[in-house]
């Protein structure tokens, strides 16, 4: 089933209130290992081939969000000459991409379209006559929003309707969401000194909750925007590509980009030729940061253990070194004492020896003297006798 805006209105009526139907949904196979987003959440399919660049969506958006009127009125299409981005007062902009920029692919595609169009008769879909393409730009309402993943106060939330909401009452104004957003969507009230807010498309959440369509979808005169369940929109987009393969590149932008977005795009030319980046990859923002985040608790768990271990080891080394030093000192002391004792002994021995020698010599001397004396006496006596 495809939901155009008219069908959706009827469907909403049948289900009492849009949000009520969502509240009652039961998750089918939603496990904690794989996350498929809110079941039955809404999205918008933007078929670039159908957009005529009338800027009515811009006007409706501005009015619904009570924005100040721009300097140039919305019916002034000269604004389209310059590529624009969302600003604080414009949550959506339509950009024009000249035929020149994608000449080759566009001519071949449109040529084919005309050929097949003849066969298909009334169903013919042609790139609008001017040869320019118009692309609407606004918040893509990611399934896993980078802004929400980046926000350190949980000011951004993915609503079950599909809208990514912003809670002004929590916002600190760090602007990390703007750094994180791969589509460069959030804007900031730089001129607000004390109460700056981050501004972006709300998917008209208040209107959806009332059972109404987003303002831009409602006003679009060419059905270039289709609101509905995202799953259904993807099926519808596939069907369109299948039915008119010459009108579209085989790529639904937003099906997988950055983990998928609630806004989906169909284009006749490669998306990077109409200002949409094709190098964003399929990984969602929380997947990009999950590795670094999961390293945090491991550091907290292991670092104190490791560091205390290193500390204890260095402490132990100090202690051992201290003890060794003590021992060494003690040993030196002991050695010194021993040596001293040895020396003393030697000295004693030496002294004893010396004394002995001295005594001996004294005795000898005495004996010698005595001998001499007696000898002298003897000679004296003999002399006297003679």
């Amino acid at each position, binding site marked *: 089933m495809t939901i155009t805006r008219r069908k959706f209105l009827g469907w909403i009526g049948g289900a009492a209130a849009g949000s009520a139907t969502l509240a009652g949904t039961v998750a089918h196979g939603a496990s904690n290992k794989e996350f498929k987003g809110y079941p039955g959440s809404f999205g918008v399919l933007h078929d670039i081939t159908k957009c005529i660049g009338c800027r009515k969506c811009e006007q409706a958006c501005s009015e619904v969000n009570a924005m100040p009127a721009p300097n140039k009125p919305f019916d002034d299409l000269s604004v389209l000459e310059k590529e624009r981005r969302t600003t604080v007062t414009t949550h959506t902009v339509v950009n024009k991409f000249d035929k020149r920029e994608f000449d080759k692919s566009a001519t071949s595609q449109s040529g084919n379209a005309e050929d097949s169009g003849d066969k298909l008769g009334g169903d013919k879909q042609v790139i609008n006559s001017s040869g320019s393409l118009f692309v609407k730009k606004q918040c893509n309402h990611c399934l896993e929003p980078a802004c929400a993943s980046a926000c350190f106060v949980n000011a951004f939330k993915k609503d079950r309707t599909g809208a990514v909401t912003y809670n002004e009452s*929590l916002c600190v104004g760090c602007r990390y969401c703007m750094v994180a957003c791969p589509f460069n969507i959030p804007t900031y009230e730089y001129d607000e000194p004390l109460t700056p807010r981050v501004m972006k498309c709300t998917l008209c959440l208040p209107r959806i909750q009332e059972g109404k369509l987003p303002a831009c979808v409602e006003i679009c005169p060419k059905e270039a925007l289709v609101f509905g369940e995202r799953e259904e929109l993807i099926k519808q987009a596939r069907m369109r590509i299948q039915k008119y393969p010459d009108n579209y590149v085989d790529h639904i932008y937003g099906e997988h980009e950055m983990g998928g977005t609630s806004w989906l795009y169909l284009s006749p030319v490669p998306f990077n030729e109409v200002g949409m980046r094709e190098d964003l990859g399929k990984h969602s923002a929380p997947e990009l940061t999950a590795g670094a985040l999961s390293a*945090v608790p491991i550091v907290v768990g292991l670092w104190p253990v490791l560091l205390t271990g290193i*500390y204890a080891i260095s402490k132990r080394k100090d202690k051992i070194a201290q003890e060794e030093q003590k021992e060494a000192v003690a040993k030196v002391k002991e050695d010194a004492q021993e040596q001293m004792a040895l020396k003393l002994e030697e000295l004693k021995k030496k002294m004893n020896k010396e004394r002995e020698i001295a005594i001996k010599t004294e005795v000898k001397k005495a004996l010698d003297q005595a001998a001499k004396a007696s000898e002298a006496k003897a000679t004296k006596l003999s002399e006297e006798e003679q």
Partner: protein
Amino acid sequence: MTLQTISIKSRLINNPLIKKVEWTPVNIVTAIILVMGFFLTIARFFGGLGTVTNLDDNNPWGVWIGFDLLCGVALAAGGYVTSSACYIFGLKRFHSAVRPAILTAFLGYALVAFALNYDVGRPWRLPYPVFYSPGTSSLLFEVGLCVFLYLNVLFIEFTPAAFEWLGLKKIRSFVVGLTMILTIFGVVLSTLHQSSLGALFLIAPSKLHPLWYSGYLPVYFFISSMFAGMSMVIFEGSLAHKYLHHKMDDTHLSESDGVVLGFSKAASFVMMGYLGIKLIGLAIDNNWHHLFTGWGLWFLFELIGFVAIPAFMYAVAARDKNVKFARIASVFAVLGIILNRLNISLIAFNWHLPSSQRYFPSWMEIATSVFIVTLGIVVYRFITAYMPILYEHSDYKHDNSNQNANSHDD
């Protein structure tokens, strides 16, 4: 109790040590910068970010984040590097370097927090992430929580100096008893927020140039914070020697050459390891072909000019025991860190945008950053002039020399 507070007050007011400000040329320039900062503050808070900065919706972060936050935090890493070297790894010869390093780190983080008040839209909500609505899936939450906690840790680690100045012996010895646990907390928190600052950019692979974007960003930031811290200790030491030589005691003077050479050796080796993992980063993402573009040259300029060359200079300085050469090397290493952080947050960020949409800071943004740095220098000069930072307080000399052995008894 009241008596004590009165005595502290009188000490603060009638302290014979607090001298009158002399109007030297340096002080006059300082005063001019402070007055200018005052007016810029008024402009910021009455006119909004739009009046002072060149920030826009494509470039939400400017020099206040790229320089004040990223460089400020990286260069304040000296606190955890020095205190862990001394207390955890047991390198006691770094002891006299711990206090100045802790003071610089504390002032650095305090200034980061101060600068954030200028950058965020509603500064009075800065406690929200920690106390009111924690966005736990955000790496900025991780950074905020750790910086907040680490600022407290650093403050407590710094207080003994203030208590010695004020003569509060009991509370001083209690805080000194916490040294070990504070040091370990400091390393844990520093590891986390230094790396998380790099991880902030993991969420934007489409905006940061592939040569700088890597899954290893958090590791790069953490490893580079180590030699950033060491280089800053050496650099700051050389400034202190020039202007505050008379404040240093014999222990500080005799140990300072050893600190410079020790950190030179360590920084040199860590920088070589850093170069190695940078090379691995190139290989793992197969980014070789980017090297031959203009961005590649700029990348090599950063890595060779401001990592490889200072690493080699450090090595030569450490081998030759040439303190002067190590100090010259530290200037290059510090510049290299600043260049790296600015590359990631500003220069190679949004590289795909046409030059008309790129960011260049306004003079008022730069002047505000200069004002904040000047404020830090003024406070540093005040504290080193009055508190026992570069010397040991005579009452606690014995205590300090035994700190390694005793500080852990609690």
